[in-house]
């Protein structure tokens, strides 16, 4: 299946996710089709038990939804719960 093809994506971790991962970004080879699948696949990395609904994701520096498709070469930004202001 085309969908299950492995792809290489850059994943960037922010704030608590970055601290837990110990790195701010990495290249991952993944079969994840959506941002949510990628989030789940990196759960050990970002170390969060937060539901995705409390977190945010951006793909190629645009805010995205969790069902956004992930394509080879994408940069995916994983944001823990935000707290501006």
């Amino acid at each position, binding site marked *: 299946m085309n969908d299950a093809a492995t792809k290489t994506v850059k994943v960037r971790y*922010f*704030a*608590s996710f970055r*601290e*837990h991962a110990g790195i701010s970004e990495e290249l991952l080879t993944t079969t994840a089709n959506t941002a949510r699948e990628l989030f789940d696949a990196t759960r050990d990395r970002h170390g*969060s*038990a*937060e*539901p995705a609904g*409390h977190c*945010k994701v*951006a793909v190629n*520096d*645009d*805010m995205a939804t969790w069902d956004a498709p992930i394509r080879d070469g994408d940069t995916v*930004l994983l*944001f*823990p*719960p*935000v*707290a*501006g*202001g």
Partner: protein
Amino acid sequence: MVQVVTAPIDPAALAEKLKDPRAGGYASFEGWVRNENEGREVLQLEYETHEPLVIKEGERIIAEAKERWPLIGAEFVHRSGLLELGACAVWVGVAAKHRDEAFLACRYLIDDLKQRLPIWKKEHYVDGDSGWVNCERCAQHGEAGRLQR
């Protein structure tokens, strides 16, 4: 206009930029660094931002407010980095012909920027501990306290 800055915010200079002969009302909000949060004594705050998306999504929030209300000007500025107690962490300013829309838009901007922009706040406590502050809405939902303590 949206800005992320590391130097202190100067609300008077920012308000001056919103001055317009047609503007009769100016509503503003400032978030100040408090000495306490959820019962813990705070020494200082550290803000992390992903600036490109703070700007891009922030401009979208401002555009939404301008669609909703007839505004003359609307801007906000957020600090990044280490902040001392009492410092202004965020400033929101809205100028409009009348006060009603100025107040409503100002409130809309601060509420949405807190919930939508990639900005994180780490509290450094007097007892030496530190922790990332959970989002307001998550806290309201009652689950998932601090990510790290």
